[in-house]
């Protein structure tokens, strides 16, 4: 009788069961509430942007991989996630060409010129977003794009008001409204509550570490308190800074992007804190009302440096009998 062929692959002989696809679907699931809330707020407009961005990202990734003669990996869901994330930070009435250019740039300049998933030094979604933001100011300006909408809330972009008028102009915004989602901005950036829920579930599922988001928000709160304590008439409160604009989606979904953020424990904390602090500095001093995403892109450059931080105890000499 022939003996069966045994597999002799090396240890470990167990695996926790996760895969790239399951991880990406976890992220998608965590983002779903915020995306649905965006569709609820802005209706078909938002649904159109989301669908277009997702399709464009998937198609452009497949095309790029075909052209670069790489195995096509759109099935792993990472392009879907990029598309969804890009859509959630765009205005609901973004023209179709803007969405298409953004998706293509994210996939090409943000991701695949560096070698694809896991190799991009910058957050791919934010690279696409930054190109749009710098190239088409009018279409990306949250102070202008909501002119055609009439929703049951203050139809002004809170950070735009802060940028123009200082903290004295913020009287009409209630912190609770900002938290639950009565706030204009990117499609998925309105409801901090739902983003927080998604982000916390990602931490509980073990997909991201708590270190980056927590230190990100801490960085925002501490840096803005410095300004606020110096002149509370001119600068907004830390709570406002944490709740307004892109802080929440940045902290939980964009800053912890795997390949552009560090992995060391202290490195992650410094990275998060740096993102938060720079975000507030840019909000106060830059030409853009919300500098959160630029702060993340800036800290992405620091990520390899931070990962060189080394703080660990040396191993002990061990004897076994």
């Amino acid at each position, binding site marked *: 009788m022939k*003996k*069966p*062929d*045994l*597999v*002799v*692959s*090396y*240890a*470990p*002989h*167990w*695996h*926790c*069961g*996760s*895969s*790239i696809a399951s*991880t990406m679907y976890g992220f998608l699931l965590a983002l779903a509430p915020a995306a649905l809330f965006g569709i609820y707020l802005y209706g078909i407009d938002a649904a159109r942007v989301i669908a277009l961005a997702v399709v464009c990202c998937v198609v452009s990734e497949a095309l790029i991989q075909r052209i670069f003669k790489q195995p096509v990996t759109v099935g792993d869901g990472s392009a879907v996630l990029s598309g969804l994330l890009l859509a959630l930070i765009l205005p609901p009435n973004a023209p179709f060409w803007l969405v298409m250019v953004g998706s293509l740039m994210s996939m090409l300049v943000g991701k695949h010129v560096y*070698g*694809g*998933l*896991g*190799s991009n030094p910058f957050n791919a979604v934010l690279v696409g977003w930054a190109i749009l933001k710098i190239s088409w100011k009018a279409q990306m300006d949250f102070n202008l794009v909501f002119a055609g909408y009439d929703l049951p809330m203050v139809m002004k972009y809170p950070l735009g008001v802060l940028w123009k008028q200082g903290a004295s102009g913020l009287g009409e915004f209630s912190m609770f409204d900002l938290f639950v989602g009565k706030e204009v901005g990117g499609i998925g950036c309105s409801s901090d509550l739902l983003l927080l829920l998604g982000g916390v579930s990602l*931490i*509980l*599922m*073990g*997909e991201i*570490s*708590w270190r980056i988001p927590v230190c990100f928000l801490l960085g925002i709160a501490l840096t803005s308190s410095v300004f606020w304590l110096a002149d509370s008439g001119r600068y907004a409160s830390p709570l406002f800074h944490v709740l307004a604009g892109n802080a929440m989606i940045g902290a939980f979904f964009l800053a912890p992007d*795997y*390949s552009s*953020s560090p*992995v*060391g424990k202290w490195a*992650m904390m410094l990275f998060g804190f740096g993102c938060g602090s720079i975000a507030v500095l840019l909000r106060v001093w830059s030409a853009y009302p919300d500098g959160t995403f630029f702060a993340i892109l800036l800290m992405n450059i620091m990520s390899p440096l931070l*990962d060189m931080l*080394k703080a*660990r*105890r*040396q*191993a*002990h*000499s*061990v*004897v*076994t*009998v």
Partner: protein
Amino acid sequence: VQAVSFFSFWAPRVPLNEDIVPIEEFDPGETARLYTRESGMGLETGDAVKTGQRLAPDLVSPVTGTVAQIEPFNGIDGQTLTSIALDVAAEEEMAEGLESVTDFSDDARDALLSTLSDLGFNVNLGSDVDAAVISCVDTDPLHTVNQQTFRESANTLPDAISLLKALTGAKRVLVAITRQLQGLARRHVDGHAEMLLLDAFYPNGLPEVILRKASRKYAGMDSGLVVGVERLFAMVTALKDGKPIQDKLVTLSVPSAGLCKTLRVRIGTRIGDVLDAHEVTLGENSKLVTGGAMRGIPCYSTDFAVTPETDSICVQDETRVVEHRNTPCLNCGKCSAVCPMDLRVNLICRYSEYALFDECQKMDVDDCIECGLCAYACTARRPLIHYLKLAKAELAKKTEE
């Protein structure tokens, strides 16, 4: 029994087996196969061998019988060994000169060491250590031998503590124990040792991890010795009876058949015989692993025999065999998060992948204990342990030159 954790707090945790799995005697067959690193021991086919007779510098016969075959043999991990097959006689005959020792006091160290060597325990104590640890925690999520030994013969603990104190001269003896068995240990420790409480999760039973935890609890602890409770209790019993090491506790785990047993198996028993007795058949593309799910070594044949180091035998059917892939690293950082030695596994493995071994050295790759948790948690299912072993082997080669 494959642990899949979705709702984990950042790191997937692998629980150890804490079930009561009573020790069962395994009926030994009529042959025994022993391995030695030495060759040409002056032994020939047909020679009669007594129980306790020294066959090679590192081998004492656990049985009485006649030599049936001597052949060179490639061990599971590729080492060059000599295999000695014995036909076991019905009547056991003890070799002369074996004596029992019951004096475990500190001055008896030399006598204890030489007797242990005569009884087949290759004890290598190395230099002096700050602490000696008796580990009642198993070294793999599949293993039950340590916890079950302690459960069934905890009253051997005082003798074991004395023996360990005498052998090592360590000022501090610790008993590493899980919460579940803490009460049992406390009743028998009797103030002669301190308790080191560990969570019942892998890799808390590995010597390096135990010492790391111990050094966090006790300041000034730089070196230590860890011995599994099963092996130490076997030493105590052998010394008291004046009988050589004859059998080994082995956990038999066949998840597809729902089988998990702790067996007392005679050393030299063919693994295939153990499987046959439990009606386990190996299908095409299944995997036979000895030594655990996380660090075990796969066997290419069922003809391997149980050695004094075999802690478990596990059979995985085709559906459970883990497939590693050569996808690029995602940098998700789960490998570094689970690493018990706090290594930057994500960086080390990428350096190793691109043959930048000096960078691996800067990242302390030599401290890796190959626990396997990184590859267990890897999202991209990369063969991380291969990369780590490659870096270590290449660095070792370099040092030799």
